[in-house]
């Protein structure tokens, strides 16, 4: 966790410097446009730099409940697996469209996580019905129902 405690404020500093720098030197915005970003950017960089130094020194902040646990290899692998499964919905809806992609994603998810065929198929069909009747028919959302984003 110590690495992450360092990485997050460092990332915030880099991101803020990049955005404010682009506004000042690339876009050449006027002072009226940049006054507030300068102020907020300075505060954000100042606070993050302070946190960065504390994190490098390993200092625990007041109000921090307990020592943050270092992630183990197993917990990292578990997290990666979980996160990848959740993110997989993006390519599913992009490749297969919302109407087909979501039920198929759910079916794959449930089966891969040990649910029975009956449960997996029923829930996926339920999701198909909700997507069609609630979002397309009732809410009239223009969902891309065909593969690769076509209507």
């Amino acid at each position, binding site marked *: 966790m110590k690495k992450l405690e360092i990485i997050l404020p460092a990332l915030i500093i880099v991101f803020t410097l990049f955005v404010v720098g682009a506004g000042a030197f690339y876009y050449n915005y006027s002072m009226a446009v940049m006054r507030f970003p300068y102020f907020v950017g300075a505060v954000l960089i100042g606070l993050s730099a302070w946190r960065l130094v504390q994190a490098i020194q390993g200092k625990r902040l007041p109000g921090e409940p307990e020592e943050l646990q270092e992630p183990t290899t197993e917990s990292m692998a578990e997290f990666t697996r*979980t996160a990848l*499964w*959740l993110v997989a919905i993006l390519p599913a809806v992009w490749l297969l469209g919302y109407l087909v992609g979501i039920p198929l*994603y759910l079916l794959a998810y449930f089966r891969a996580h040990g649910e029975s065929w009956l449960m997996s198929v029923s829930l996926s069909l339920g999701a198909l019905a909700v997507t069609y009747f609630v979002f397309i028919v009732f809410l009239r*959302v223009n969902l891309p129902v065909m593969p690769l984003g076509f209507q």
Partner: protein
Amino acid sequence: MEYFTLLSEGFLRVMRPDIILIMLAAIPFGLIFGIVPGLSGLTALAILLPFIYGMEALPGLALLLASHAVIYTGGSVSAIILGIPGSPPNAATVVDGYPMAQQGRGGQAMGAALMASGLGGVFGVLVLVAILPVLEPIVLSFGSPETFFLALMGVTFIAIVGEGPMQKGLIAGALGIFLALFGYQPTTSVPRFHFGSDYLLDGFRIIPLALGLFAVPELIALSAKGKSVAQTGSISGVTFGQVMEGCAAVFKHWWLFIKSSTIGAVVGIVPGVGGETSPFVAYAAAKQSSRTASTYGQGNIEGVIAPESSNNAKEGGALVPTLAFGIPGSTGMALLLGGFLILGLEPGPEFLKEHMDLGVGLAMVVAIANVMAAIVMILLAKYIARLTYLRGHILAPLLLAIIVLGTYASKNNPMDVVYVFVFGALGYLMKELNYSRAPLILGFVLTNAIESYLHISLRSFGPTFFMRPISLIIIGLLVLGLVWPSISRRLRRGRGA
């Protein structure tokens, strides 16, 4: 007299069939999110945000408020039956509610909790409608400098008193403000930091940000857990007669109910505090003044009534600073401000001046939602509680599908769905590293007002715009809020030495 007319008009506006239907849909949603531990009220609000696009103000806010108002009503059931609080503020209910369930008095505990929650919610609303007209002349004396400092104070206060260390909260608040700077600048209309992307011309959107910060990290936790939360506890022994006995107990302990609800409403008014604080304060106050204090923790029904009354009463109190000053009284209210933004409304002094009727209508929504939820739960709690047996592997992907569909539906823009995951990564990191996420969303929501009022103040009053009595008082409070944690730490250390 005029205010009473406003109250009755507000009531009649809420009794429209479409609003009643919306509330009937929102209440079960809120109750389910309250009952299932791990799915917080914030997740429910974030998931509902995309659905208010294109709605009128009152129905849109009714959808959010009705679901939010009943979260803790649902949460009390899992606290009693499973010994696991459905939402963090239900933690105090576990202390006596769970032992009651183990003694076979779960129905009584549930009845008491549900009745206290429902009536507590109504009590909080009464406090709100009593305070709003008193506040009106005060907030009307606020000009642009005061409104600027007030908004700044809102972000700072929720960073200070929210979860996690103050310094991390302040970073989150500043990051929220910074993220809102993308897109058209409010006073010059110059597209700022768009980096050639059409999407960024309008800036980051509130819906992907709210869903990413508050829903995705919970889905990761739910999915990683996999199993159902209800490993213990039983709902089979709960009878309707027992539930009704519990309901009657609230009227028997009416003074305890009034005292605890007052504590909840008052704590709710203090910006950012509410949350987990008020039920524990009410519990401690009840124990201190009880004749049966020795049985607290062993299944005393007073230990259920006190925290549950204050839990729902605090939401009425929390609406006071949210509507009058634009400063959220609780974390949920910070997300609710996002709803106001989507509907083109800006809570604060101007809101109270122009939309007092809407404020009254919202108060009515909270009151009616609390009563409806209590009735639904008293009748169906035994069956609804079975939801806690749903496995994380089933809930997480189903909720994710709703999030993806809802996000796309809000603007028909697939990039919004991608940003849900981008902000989800940020939200997960923040959660793991104990950064409070509420200041980020509040900073994001209030930036437009902060920047606009800063520009107006500079143009109207020059660089010394802050040299006005009310502004100086707010600045003083802001500075005091920032230094108070370190002063109180030193005082405690001094006393300990």
